[in-house]
């Protein structure tokens, strides 16, 4: 199989992965075959409808859910908004959402916009104590509990399937960081995923709503193929996203083992070779492909810039690199160092030589930046 690979040195798959090779031909073919309105009864319309139905079935099959539980949205963020707020709207108990302090900003913004939040703290490794969520769920007016499958910044996998909630309090799980890479947990009423994080095209989110869930659209309705979504379907992209998802699920055992080992190398080498560094997140029960660490006395923006100059693309949760100029709420909730922060996430084709090159370059760069301030 040929196809696009990550640019050399791009160690930021958690922000976005390049299109999976299995999706490229599907996308190109579907651009020609799937342009028409899938609601029309004419031949091109039926063709587009067929592709859309195929995408839904392939996605359901890859995720182990029913096809009528799958909705395609214009982004993972929109899937989160729809999924979470739809459960709130469907609740008979109230509009309070009990959620962890380390949820993605999409969850936090949704709660701020259309619900009332009750936040539960995390351990130093970013793990959410289930007992506190369960305790919080009992309170009156709690309509929904929200817990991510895994944390997008530090990789810690949450024990979503172990949650024991009252029967009338549904669980929303943000699965954007893990969808395709890890099997979905049990116990949720609605879930969300994002295709560009598994190697599908951008502009495709996946909303899953369980057949028996009380879900009501929180936004204006539309008259499209799927009553849960609005706007004209992006048939070529959802088909490519489904093809990528199938491929990722098929190869995940091998890819996850390789990526888990590469991240272990980074965790070990960084902790050993960089003085005054904090490698955070659960070292074992984590996403296979990402790791976060923070370097004392280092300006995060300077570190990102210097690494980029040497050909390494990495993300940072430090305040100076954020549009909001506030530190990552995830690192803050964990009580770990927020400055000098690096989030490294390996791509599907990242090699041991790539991560060794990064680990070789890092100590000198950190020392150089510290030397600028005399430390």
């Amino acid at each position, binding site marked *: 199989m040929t196809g696009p690979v990550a640019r050399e040195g791009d160690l930021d798959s958690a922000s976005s992965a390049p299109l999976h090779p299995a999706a490229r031909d599907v996308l190109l073919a579907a651009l020609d075959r799937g342009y028409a309105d899938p609601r029309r009864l004419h031949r091109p319309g039926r063709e587009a409808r067929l592709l859309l139905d195929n995408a839904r079935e392939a996605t359901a099959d890859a995720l182990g859910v029913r096809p009528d539980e799958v909705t395609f949205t214009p982004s993972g963020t929109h899937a989160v908004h729809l999924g979470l707020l739809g459960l709130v709207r469907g609740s008979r108990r109230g509009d309070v959402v009990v959620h962890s302090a380390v949820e993605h900003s999409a969850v936090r913004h949704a709660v701020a916009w259309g619900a009332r939040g009750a936040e539960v703290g995390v351990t130093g490794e970013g793990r959410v104590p289930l007992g506190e969520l369960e305790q919080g769920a009992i309170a009156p007016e709690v309509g929904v509990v929200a817990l991510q499958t895994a944390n997008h910044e530090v990789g810690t996998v949450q024990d979503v399937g172990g949650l024991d909630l009252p029967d009338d309090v549904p669980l929303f799980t943000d699965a954007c960081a893990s969808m395709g890479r890890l099997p979905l947990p049990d116990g949720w009423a609605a879930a969300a995923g994002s295709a560009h994080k598994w190697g599908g095209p951008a502009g495709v989110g996946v909303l899953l709503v369980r057949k028996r869930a009380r879900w009501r659209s929180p936004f204006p309705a539309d008259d499209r193929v799927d009553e849960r979504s609005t706007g004209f379907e992006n048939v070529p992209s959802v088909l490519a996203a489904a093809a990528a998802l199938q491929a990722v699920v098929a190869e995940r055992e091998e890819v996850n083992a390789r990526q888990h080992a590469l991240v272990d190398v980074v965790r070990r080498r960084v902790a050993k070779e960089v003085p*005054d560094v904090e490698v955070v997140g659960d070292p074992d029960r984590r996403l296979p492909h990402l790791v976060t660490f923070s370097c*004392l006395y280092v*300006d995060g923006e300077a570190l990102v810039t210097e690494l980029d100059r040497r050909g390494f693309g990495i993300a940072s949760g*430090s*305040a*100076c690199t954020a549009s909001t100029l506030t530190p990552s709420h995830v690192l803050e909730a964990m*009580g*770990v160092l927020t*400055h000098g922060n690096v989030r490294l996430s390996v791509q599907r084709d990242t090699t041991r030589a790539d991560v060794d090159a990064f680990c070789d370059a890092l100590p000198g760069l950190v020392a150089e930046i510290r030397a600028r*301030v005399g430390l």
Partner: protein
Amino acid sequence: MTAYDVALELDCRDLPCPMPVIELARHLGDVEVGRLLAVVAHDPAAAVDVPAWCRMKGQDYVGADTAADGAPRHVVRRLS
């Protein structure tokens, strides 16, 4: 209100992250072991990073209060 009697207060009000923590490291040696050192900073990262620095460097994070002008102040006890 100032709640702690500190031996040295560092004015980092206008300094961006991570300068308040860098100033803390630079001036730790200016107070005797057992005495309090405070850093005054508007930088929102300081509220997390000063306690994290204490944990990493084996110092004691005493707590936060506010300087006379209402600016957040983070207080550290030198242990070594």
